[in-house]
């Protein structure tokens, strides 16, 4: 194996390792995902019929400038929506703790 081939293999492996580390979720994001699956997914992922309004999908919720409600897509606004509810979305006040909401927001940031 000549020097060039070894260099290419080393570079490819390094890039793969870097990408793997870069894409693995943090503990907070991982917990946020579990909370999302438990509390949010039923409405926001595949809502059943019978609701007054279809809840919006949350993919890329922080990638846009505005939330589906039209409010600015900021952590503060999303936290407020989760705690107080919005229109037919129920308030998660007292159901989710502050750290829970931090983890949820961290996970929502990962959605593209």
């Amino acid at each position, binding site marked *: 194996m000549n020097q060039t081939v070894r260099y290419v293999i080393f570079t490819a492996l390094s890039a793969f390792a870097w990408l793997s580390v870069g894409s693995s979720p943090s503990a907070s994001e991982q917990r946020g995902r*579990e909370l999302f*699956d*438990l*509390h949010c*997914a*039923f*409405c926001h*992922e595949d*809502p*059943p*019929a*019978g*609701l*007054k309004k279809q809840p919006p999908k949350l993919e890329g919720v922080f990638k846009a400038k505005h939330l589906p409600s039209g409010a600015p897509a900021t952590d503060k606004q999303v936290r407020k929506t989760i705690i107080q*509810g919005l*229109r*037919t979305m*129920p*308030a*998660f*006040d*007292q*159901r989710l703790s502050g750290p829970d909401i931090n983890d949820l927001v961290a996970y929502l940031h990962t959605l593209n």
Partner: protein
Amino acid sequence: MNLRQLIPVVFLGILLSGCQSKTKHYDLRGQVLDKNPATNQITVKHGDIPGFMPAMTMSYSVKDQNGFQPVEPGDVITADVIMANNGNEYWLENVRITDESGRKTIKPTVHRLDIGERVPDLTLVNQDGKSFRLGDFKGKAVLLTFIYTRCPVPTFCLRLSGQFAKIQDDLAKTPADFAKTHLVTISFDPKYDTPPVLRKYGLAYLDNDPAGFSHWDFASTNAGDLRKIADAFGLEYFEEENQISHSMVIVLVSPEGTVAKYWSTEWTTAELEDALRQQEKVGIVPAQADRQRKAG
């Protein structure tokens, strides 16, 4: 069958399978609190079901008699929750008893009012802070249900309010029906669901038009009277870990002020509307003008 004959059959099969409404399966583990042979339903206090709901107490139908018969209140069970028809139908399958030792610890549930019995004339406070009594609606067919505004389960309170909103809209299309009917949504969480919270909640279901409150009250009352109303209609609810576990009850009250019909988890909006219109027509008490409320 040669290949040329087989292709359309395979294609048709794929097409038909795509047309069928998809079902979802979730694993449930919990304790049976109540069993109702009349409806083939059991009420289960279960743990978290990821993707479906957090820990909750809910009533489920068990269609398979072999699964339903052996179960007794107090049993710990495992089962599959099957959800179909976009979440409008769900039931339990593969019910297995894993522990029978709790059978003696479960208290019998309160006996709810029978069909034809008079509804208790208790006082409630609505979204505007005004008091009214259930007896104020004599002459009208009343559809009444129970929710709490923080309920996150789309097949429970969110569905109830969403479908009551549809009933409200449908009845409004026929003024005669609208005038002889009324909707009441009662919160069993009066500590959180104060009149301003109920008003905000109600407006979300009334397209932000407060005029709708004249036909649909969102109300609650003190803890003692709330329990009396809940017991009268067989509603179970209890607070646990920052949430309220509860069963689902819809009651149709006749224009005479008696219980005309109950529903739990299995109902359609059309069925509720038909029952309301039927009651409104058989009512023997002349419909009164909208109930008297004190101004202010």
